[in-house]
């Protein structure tokens, strides 16, 4: 750490070097009294050091809420959201997925989570004007093979799904080129993937969406109930790393999660599951919920005449997308179907 670049008196700089304090973090981790003892300076000098160091770290960091509200810059504005490609779904989310933060999509199997994930990977590549972020996507698979055939189907049908976008713009986008698929079947590979490959791709601006399908699969087999503390530590570390990447590169992170049965009434009520006949709660517990900005749940609606739980193979089976919690949205839901061209909401 080059202390000379700070606006400090030479006496303080000499004391810092002598006490072998190497970073701003070390300075702030020590209390005022500890610093006095270590550096043998008076308390006035220590206060001066702390203030200067804090100023340098937090230079120009204040914004008023009015400035946030009036910010129209595509890259920094809070109003910029990632569209889902369907106006009904976007209306439910008041624009789409927020660009900074971890959004979770939980639901039973075959409810449509992967479909929404794939659709987002295509939506992110559109220009800002059409709700995209003009960049690619990283898709991290943890259990199944990446559904490339389905992706190809969706790419071929984009003109049908996105009728609002002129055909020449759709044709110009090379969808397949900008989707980076990573396989991470265990925790260590996942850790490597996040800390190395992901930060590289995001730093180069090649991707502005990360879809993780699914996080629960990594934890299902390896952790018994006795190792809950270790599991919690992993979850907190992953959550913090993803959060930090999302903030630094203003990239939405969509985590697909599975559900488990809710053991008690209160657990089910906590995630406000209004789906009839099902008492499910997202997996990974409160440790993971604490890392999230927004939680969405999808489920199949059992149609009258079909026995509940029977997988309905007709193409138009209805599903619900509900907002469980979000700082800017009320709890609400809407219906959608999975068509050939993608996920479309029903008014």
């Amino acid at each position, binding site marked *: 750490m080059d202390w000379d670049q700070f606006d400090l008196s030479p006496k303080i700089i000499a004391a810092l070097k002598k006490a072998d304090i190497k970073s701003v973090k070390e300075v702030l981790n020590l209390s005022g009294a500890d610093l006095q003892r270590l550096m043998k300076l008076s308390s006035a000098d220590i206060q001066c050091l702390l203030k200067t160091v804090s100023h340098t770290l937090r230079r120009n960091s204040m914004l008023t809420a*009015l400035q946030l509200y009036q910010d129209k810059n595509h890259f920094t504005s809070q109003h910029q959201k990632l569209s889902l490609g369907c106006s009904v779904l976007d209306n439910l989310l008041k624009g789409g997925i927020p660009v900074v933060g971890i959004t979770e999509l939980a639901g039973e199997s075959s409810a449509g989570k992967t479909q929404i994930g794939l659709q987002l990977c295509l939506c992110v590549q559109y220009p800002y004007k059409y709700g995209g972020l003009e960049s690619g996507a990283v898709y991290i698979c943890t259990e199944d093979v990446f559904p490339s055939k389905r992706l190809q189907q969706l790419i071929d049908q984009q003109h049908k799904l996105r009728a609002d976008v002129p055909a020449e713009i759709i044709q110009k986008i090379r969808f397949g080129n900008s989707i980076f698929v990573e396989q991470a079947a265990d925790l260590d590979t996942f850790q490597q993937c996040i800390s190395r490959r992901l930060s590289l791709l995001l730093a180069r601006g090649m991707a502005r969406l990360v879809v993780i399908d699914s996080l629960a699969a990594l934890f299902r087999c390896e952790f018994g109930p006795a190792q809950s503390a270790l599991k919690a530590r992993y979850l907190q570390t992953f959550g913090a790393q993803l959060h930090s990447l999302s903030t630094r590169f203003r990239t939405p992170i969509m985590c697909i999660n599975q559900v488990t049965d809710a053991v008690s009434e209160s657990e089910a009520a906590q995630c406000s599951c209004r789906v009839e006949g099902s008492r499910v709660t997202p997996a990974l517990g409160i440790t993971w919920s604490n890392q999230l900005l927004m939680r969405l749940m999808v489920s199949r609606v059992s149609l009258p005449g079909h026995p509940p739980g029977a997988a309905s193979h007709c193409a138009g089976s209805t599903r619900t997308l509900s907002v469980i919690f979000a700082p800017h949205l009320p709890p609400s839901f809407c219906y959608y179907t999975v068509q050939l061209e993608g996920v479309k909401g029903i008014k």
Partner: protein
Amino acid sequence: MQREVGTLPLAPALRARLAAAGFQTAQELLDTGPCGLSKEIGISREEALEALQVVRQECHGDAARPAGGSGATRKCTALELLEEEQTQGFIITFCSALDNILGGGVQLTKITELCGAPGVGKTQLCMQLAVDVQIPECFGGVAGEAVFIDTEGSFMVDRVVDIAAACVQHCHLIAEAQPEEDLRKALETFSLENILSHIYYFRCRDYTELLAQVYLLPEFLSEHSKVRLVVIDGIAFPFRHDFEDLSLRTRLLNGLAQQLIIIANDHKAAVVLTNQMTTRIGQSQSTLVPALGESWGHAATVRLIFHWDNSQRLATLYKSPSQKESTIAYHITSHGFRDVQPPAVTHSTEGAEPNPRKRPRTEEEKQ
């Protein structure tokens, strides 16, 4: 000038050295001067200068106050404190049930901690308070400004706009019902843009940035003297990962709490912190408890725990020096934090409108 060295407000180690070197009165210290002092007892020149400054202040204070007593600490009677406390402002939350159990609202000069599971409404209440602190005095507010320190990135300005618009609307309705000149004048400056421009937003991405920001807060609050609310949303998030050494975390949190208490007192501001919940595994079942450990529980003066009961949101006052423990229900509407139903007029109020500054009578008296 004849003050004994042992009665001066110096560090005990320093006092011991002075006694060992043979100094007995303050006058002797002042006569020796800093260089002589530092040579005699073996401290640095800066420390000697500081010590002498303290001694000089003490003697000056003594001369000016013949009644005696240390100048460094403030002396006042409990009656004065009571009067001060009763004129203390509260920041209302627009949920009258919550205001009632808090004794009027979120109290200035105290640290209030909001704990709860994700999605229960902590950030909503913080945004509500950042708007409510700005309500003009003639409407029952404290006419202050707000500092919002965000560590999780959950501050959505669109939501604040909704809450602020509803608050302005509410005040307009009051002004229409009671046509008084000062109400109308106050409304001229109480507009959406004005409210948004007085919420100062800081985004801290890890605990080092948070610590640095809190070191800079006293200066910021001196420059912006109208700030009456400091929100840190949330305090747990940056401290719950990345800490191999938990004792370091406890030390940093304690230091943070001390600084916040000083800030709350010196600048007459309310400090509101939000905390996460974590699972504590007991003998036969697991319960949700506030995160950051047992010692953190002592940091806040008032602790509110938010939780669910089936689909009703509840708030429990868990810790308060003056109010009893109670639970109320609340709603979060598109306008913000609200009661579950319109507040019933209780027979314990005097006058037309319950005065939010009076503490509600306890139930035991009636029975």
